[in-house]
């Protein structure tokens, strides 16, 4: 418990630092490319096009119908869900290796090491906001107008950031100590795209299968953004139990992550 408050206080105290470091992170990532930061949008755009081609066009998915009544074409339905995936995926893979790749840069012991995963995640957030904006603009031309349910977006963004941060505290500690863990994370993340209901709807399956799939905390985030962007409803109220479950998982992760991080951080440098 003590470690958790310590880690959270470090985030609060170093807010400016985290912001600036995130800005530099973004800058140094795209310095070598002629198109620069444009790649932060081009990369997801290419992938979205492929997913649409394979699942939407070749397999010819039917429009998706929700219990609430809304029916959506495959492309906007997929886009609404996958947009946030382009924040989740790099945040987890980079967050996990954030500490051991940057420890040399820090070179002072009283640097708040818990700020490293958070600034790496924050640097992924900026392109994400842009991607979300582009998605919203596209939706205006597809007949899915701005709606009151957009108000959920800030809530789900905060939930996503907190969740990714908690998870990264755990993964970055483990992968600093055992480097193989990073490999595992990268493979698992590729799998996670397909076992999370991002590219396929959950609606057709049996209750048990649906229940198991909903235990995946990413389902909550993806579906939440979908409800918001498509204007389907207030997801976190309609699925109250899922909301409780998600925050419980988040707290457990945060607690565990802070404990591991604080316990091992003094010795991180010895594992390099």
């Amino acid at each position, binding site marked *: 418990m003590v470690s958790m408050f310590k880690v959270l206080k470090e985030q609060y105290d170093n807010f400016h630092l985290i912001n600036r470091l995130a800005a530099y992170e973004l800058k140094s990532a795209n310095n070598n490319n002629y198109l620069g930061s444009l790649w932060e949008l081009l990369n997801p755009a290419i992938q979205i096009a492929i997913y649409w081609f394979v699942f939407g066009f070749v397999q010819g998915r039917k429009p998706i119908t929700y219990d609430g009544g809304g029916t959506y074409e495959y492309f906007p339905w997929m886009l609404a869900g996958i947009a946030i995936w382009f924040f989740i995926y790099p945040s987890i893979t980079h967050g996990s290796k954030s500490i051991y790749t940057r420890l*040399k840069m*820090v070179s*002072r012991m009283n640097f708040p090491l818990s700020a490293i995963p958070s600034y790496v995640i924050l640097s992924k957030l900026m392109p994400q906001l842009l991607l979300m904006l582009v998605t919203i603009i596209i939706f205006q031309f597809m007949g899915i107008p701005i709606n009151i349910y957009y108000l959920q977006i800030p809530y789900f963004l905060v939930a996503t950031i907190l969740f990714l941060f908690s998870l990264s505290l755990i993964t970055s500690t483990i992968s600093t100590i055992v480097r193989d863990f990073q490999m595992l994370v990268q493979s698992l993340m590729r799998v996670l795209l397909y076992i999370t209901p991002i590219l396929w709807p959950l609606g057709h399956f049996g209750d048990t299968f649906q229940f198991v799939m909903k235990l995946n905390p990413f389902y909550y985030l993806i579906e939440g953004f979908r409800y918001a962007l498509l204007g389907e409803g207030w997801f976190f109220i309609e699925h109250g139990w899922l909301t409780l479950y998600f925050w419980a998982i988040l707290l457990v992760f945060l607690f565990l992550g802070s404990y591991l991080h604080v316990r091992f951080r003094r010795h991180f440098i*010895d594992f390099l």
Partner: protein
Amino acid sequence: MTKSVVVKNLTKRYKLYSSNKEKMMDIFLPKSYGEPFYALRDVSFEAEKGDTIGFVGINGSGKSTLSNIIAGIVPETSGSVEIDGQASLIAVAAGLNNQLTGRENIELKCLMLGFSKEKIKALEPDIIDFAELGKFIDQPVKSYSSGMRSRLGFAISVHTDPDVLIIDEALSVGDKAFGEKCLEKMQEFKERGKTMFFVSHSIGQMKKFCEKAIWLEFGKVKMEGSIKEVIPAYEKFMDDYKKMSNKEKKQYREDAFKERSEEKEAVHS
């Protein structure tokens, strides 16, 4: 006089593993695996404000480990280091980001040291001026020569105004003119009562600059005292060492290695 750095019974033990499997077992199992190696064993000394202390010793005697521990970069295995204020280490490869320009690195480095936005803005011109990089300040650091890199690193470190400064071989890369400038700056630090540690193989620089010296040999303090006592003794040892035949040298190093990998309780003096 007030103590600025107190090092007590400092020990740093590394583990040498013969395989990755052994390393894994050491992390996860309570039993100890791998061969211990004492980079430092039972090192104690004190430094007062305004002291400039040189660390001498042959390669691998623990000078850099000691400076890293004082700077707080590497944790100690046992013993303690108490520092009054903030310590800063200047080493040749002082954690610059190769992708960013010199100017951006200045801000990044200062941010990491915990400075506010205003303070960084105020410091920036001084640092740029001191580093003498000209137009290169707006070029990525990867295009710098090693001298330029160490100049930038040195300029940043001295302007962050630490209370304890540790200089690890950083002056040996720059040219003579820059070396002079750095020594001048360090002289100024000395007058302001800051404590400095100086690691160098250049006995000349050390004689010029330090008042005290600590001679480390195989992770232990062999001799400690004023520069006038330690340096001649060290030079004499170096001469003797050079005169040894290769076989004797090898024997000498092997004996030392054996001693450093022995697991034994530190003898407190």
